[in-house]
């Protein structure tokens, strides 16, 4: 019965072929360091799920942002858990992505034929840091406000275009409601979509080229 159903599906979707290329493939024997990529992927999924739940109550305006977060922590059933997980997974994800990069670096896995996998990886690293930077402002508390004031003014010292970058980030000369809505848009729409698209390419390349083998010391 089950095999008949799969046969029927496969005839129309090619699902068995997809299964074979993604799961049913031979790869070199790998060690635990090779789990860091999938750990990053897992944490990203956690962030998507908890993040979507948070937007149900979060309000991106200076008047209401702080109170809405306060409400999530005290008024919403399990709101504290959702926010707590989102908060900690953000830090953990930066850590796993960075360690994943170091793993790839020290195993020389960025070399032929995986150069493009590496380049997409660097985009993912920068986008992940961007998520951290934009997300930090959203609770609109003292830490958020002042860290972002300093962070954006650092961008303002870039010679020539610094002032332009500063205004583009803040939506004006000072931190304001414009900054908050901008960071919100970047945090929940722009950066996640970039990450999602680039992860797809990244994983396609990982499967296409196969995971590298841990190099032996004569390699």
């Amino acid at each position, binding site marked *: 019965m089950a095999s008949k159903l799969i046969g029927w599906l496969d005839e129309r979707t090619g699902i068995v072929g997809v299964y074979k290329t993604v799961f049913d493939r031979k790869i*070199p*024997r790998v060690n635990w360091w090779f789990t860091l990529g999938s750990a990053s992927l897992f944490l990203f999924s956690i962030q998507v799920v908890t993040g979507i739940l948070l937007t149900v109550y979060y309000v991106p305006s200076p008047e209401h942002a702080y109170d809405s977060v306060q409400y999530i922590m005290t008024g919403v059933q399990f709101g504290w858990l959702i926010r707590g997980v989102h908060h900690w997974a953000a830090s953990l994800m930066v850590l796993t992505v960075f360690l994943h990069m170091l793993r790839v670096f020290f195993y020389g896995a960025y070399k*032929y034929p995986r150069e493009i996998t590496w380049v997409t990886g660097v985009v993912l690293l920068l986008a992940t840091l961007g998520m951290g930077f934009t997300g930090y402002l959203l609770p609109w*508390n*003292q*830490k958020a406000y002042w860290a972002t004031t300093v962070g954006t003014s650092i961008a303002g010292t870039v010679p020539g275009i610094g002032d332009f970058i500063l205004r583009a980030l803040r939506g004006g000369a000072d931190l304001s409601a414009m900054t908050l809505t901008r960071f919100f848009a970047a945090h929940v729409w722009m950066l996640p979509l970039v990450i999602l698209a680039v992860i797809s390419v990244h994983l396609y390349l990982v499967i296409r080229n196969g995971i590298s083998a841990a190099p032996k010391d004569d390699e």
Partner: protein
Amino acid sequence: MNEEQKRDYQEKYRIAKLRGEKFFPDTIYKDVLVSFALFLLLIGLATFVGVAPEPKADPSDTSYIPRPEWYFLFLFELLKFFPGSLEWVGTAVLPGLAVALLFLLPFIDRNPRRHWKNRKFAAGLMSVIVIGMVALTIRAVVTTPPQAEATVAGTLAERIVAGQDLYAVHCVECHGAEGEGGRIEGVQGLEGVTLKPINSQDEMHTRSDETLYAIIEIGQQTLGMPPFGRAYGGELSPGEIESIVAFMRYTWDDRAEMPRAAEQASTLPVLKPGETPDYATHIEPIVKRYCVSCHRPGKANNNYLMRTYDEVMNSGDHKPNIIPGDLRSNLVRMVRWEKIEAGGPMPPSRPLKPELIEMIEQWVLAGAPEKAGAPATK
């Protein structure tokens, strides 16, 4: 890499795969195990560590020490090495260079060998960079001074209770303990001015939270109401002003229902049968609500401060104002609404409720103890 090296690599890789394992289930079980461990770790962190509470953003509080998320600390620290006109080297050149190098790494590093032992320069450079980042992060953590502790009122009930305390300190001297207003006595500059009540339904129904917030923040200087917002030279943060507004709204507005938890915390303690009053349980709440507003530094009060037990017992131009066991003590006579050598009746604009006066008398008679069960002071 030339064609031969590429072919050589592909051949080796083919053999490694032949000797290898199946992605499903041999490899993926490790991935699932690690992800599951991370999941448990996250639940644990969220439950037992949580997210540290922080006060609301206050653009006027320039004394706040900015602190980025931990993974940006190394950058923050790095900038300290590029002061003044060199700043752009730390903010633009170095990070830009690092990102460019990361992107171009596979095209710059043409060494065909892969094991780190055969890539001493690349592996060494990356190690130095990572150690540098960790060292800078540690340096940043060690050198940033601790933040001044700020109390954060989380729930509505906590906000109301915090607001009540703030109201007692900052507003009672003019508006009275219940916002009842009346003739101001004992306040420099406003002596004898009569204030309308701010606890009336008229006031509550015509003033929104935003209006109350603005009045407290900016004041009504032509009428004598001082500004309290930091941006206007006062000493209250936005969170504190919001707490006061919450206190006013939920205590005085008949349309708002006081949360249970706040109600319990805001009622003054009563004496149980046979109990002797002590300072910590019974007297301090009265003093906080009715006296501290004037009896704190910077106010006219004959140098009589009432913030702690010690001050209540031992300060003032006519000290001691409390003599344990003696109902002729200055303080007792003054709250009984007598005018004596040390000054006028206290609190100046209207007497305390009789049951509170009685509580103070019993406490003094019992020897003015500080804590329940503590021996009376001499």
